[in-house]
């Protein structure tokens, strides 16, 4: 979906800044935050009771946890 400097871009910027200011989330790469946002955008109009969105998000968060564990070890 084509998005100019619009609501999506705006909220992505705000979320990236929000995560970078959070002590636990600041190590998360920007690409992973954008991946989560993209999942939420793609499934905004899904009619499957959010099951697919949650499966995809959970997968991304697992990868984030792995990344954070690597950083901390």
């Amino acid at each position, binding site marked *: *979906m084509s998005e100019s400097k619009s609501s999506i871009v705006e*909220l992505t910027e*705000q979320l990236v800044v*929000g*995560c970078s200011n959070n002590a636990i989330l600041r190590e998360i790469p920007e690409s992973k935050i954008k991946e989560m946002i993209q999942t*939420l955008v793609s499934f*905004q109009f899904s009619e499957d009771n959010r099951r697919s969105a949650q499966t995809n*998000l959970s997968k991304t968060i*697992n990868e984030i946890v792995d990344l954070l*564990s690597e950083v901390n070890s």
Partner: protein
Amino acid sequence: MKLESLHLQNWQPFRGRGLDATKIELKSDSGQKNMIIYGENTHGKTAIWQAIQFGFFGKVNKRKTGWQEGKYKPLIWDDTAGEPLLNQTANEEGDYIFGVRMEFNHEGEEYTLERTVEPRQGVSKPRNDGQMEKPDLYIRNNSKGKIVKQPQNFINDILPYDLAQFFMFDGERLDQYRLLFEDTNDVKLKGYIEAILRFPVLTDGVQDFGDIKKKEEKALRKFALRGTADEELRGVVKKLEDDVEELEKVIKKITGEKDLADEELRIVDEWLKLNDKGAEALAQQTIFNAQIEKLELEIEEATKRISKRLPGTWRAIISSRIETRLDELDGEIKRQTSETKRIGEIETQIKSLEGRLKGDACGYCGHIDKKPGLKEIDEINKKIIVLEKESTKLEKSRIDPDPHYLQTRQRALFDIKSTNKLDMLIDLEEDIVNKNQDMRDAKSNLKKAMRLLSSQARREVQEYLVQQRELQDAIAVYNIDNQKMKDFVKTREMEIKNITGKIQPKSQTIAHSKCGKKIEVLSNLIEVWDTVTTQHRETMRARVEENASNLFMSLTNKSKTYKGLKIHTDFQVEILHKKKSRGAEAGSGGQSALMAYSILDALTKSSGIEFPMVVDTPARSIDENNLGRLFDYLLLESEKQVIILPESKELKPKDGDDKYGGRCATTYEIELIGKDEDMSQLKLRINNTGKTRKEMGYDD
């Protein structure tokens, strides 16, 4: 996305076999992207608008129904369904295949889309929709030479169906946006506004992260419970978890029932709003009654304020004369001053004359005249008597009225003027006058509304209103029950947390610690998403308000009266007046329609979605004074691709071509053909495509 061509086959009044039967082109080599299709009522303008809707979404709303009402036109004529999509003559002649083809450019790549319908295999003469295949969609990426897999998903990525109503609309239905002026809490419309601004990306995020977190917490508890041999403790936790599961089922059930009630209420509201004048009248009656009540209170309040500030409202009423009175007082004081001066002069003159009588030296030059003779003494005495008379008269006049009184009054009047008390009182008075006028208007509107209500209509409306009230009550109960259940779940989850929190697992596995870490990440994601939700909502509200307000002020012919639009956090909209005392209001039908255009433009801009604005009867709700500005904006100023389908009373073909033809790739006019004039065809008027008319199928 830019539309480049639209082809119709046996589509409503446009008869013709093959997808090239009726061609509309709007791709121009010289950059023009807009298109105008002129046509009178019932000639087929809406059919073209609907062909675009059908091409993208495979369904066509019945005329006069909204996008979400689930009422679609039938594919083929049968005894029960009117207005089919298949051309009636084609149907009678046994030509049952119909559909549309569109060519478009999306993100720099060229595509061809085809959506066609044909009878089911083995059906030679279809009689109803059940005997027709479902519309078949095919999209090809011509730039890459590939067929697009899952074509409907591809379309939904370009423009989700729910958001299409912001890009494709009927000028006649702009009235629904008037609801935004009223505090109607039209959740559905406001929901779509939130959707186009992508708020659900944040709110769904909070919900999804919360759900995932719950699952992870359950998994973590399992880890913890594995570490204890306390069977009773496991039993308690299991019981609580079962409780939570059961309660969540109840919550789901209540939510489902509430959603149904919400939908029913929406239908009832819709009926009350749109389908019955009586309902409108009754609703208006309620509004006007409320307005009258409110105005009465406001007038009472304003009157009290006047009395409090300066006892006696009469003072405010006569205060307009204060200025005149001040001038009069000033005149009197000046007169008294001049009289006092004159009395002084007379005294000097009398003194001098008396000196003359006594033979004193002149008071000015010291010269001593010789004593006057009897005749001269007589004349001097006469002069003295005249002067004394004048002096006595002046003395009386000088102290009437008392100069002290005059000065005190002058000071008092100046005081009223300089402390703005007068202005304030005049404002309050004006406010009361305005409110009284508003009240008279409201009362007259109420009378009109009452006249519209026939007794039967009133009964029917009353039934719907009762149903509306019952549904509202039921929804309120569902909400309370839901909250109660949620509280129970919360309590049980706290208990589970307390119990399991005390268990120390014997050893911590990697999976166990990852699960803990995931919960921690999820909690923080929820926090960030939650904070950004509030922030983003305000950012987007302000942006939409600014863009919509600017456009509205450039479109309205009342820019001297209005100062812009105000959009509240719940997307209720007001037109703001320059004169504060009149407050904000919805404005006339025409102004509301301009407001709707402004909001739609601002929303679509903020959405970042590129899609043409396709408007049927664009100026249907706009008054003559604002028409020109609207067309100028749509066809000359807007950055979007604009496709409009006006009637000649909105825009005459010659005028439209003269003024906007240069900015359009093409303009067409729909003509009726056939022996009963029941079919239509397109006549090409302006052609800026770079192709010859012959190449476009017009053999002049």
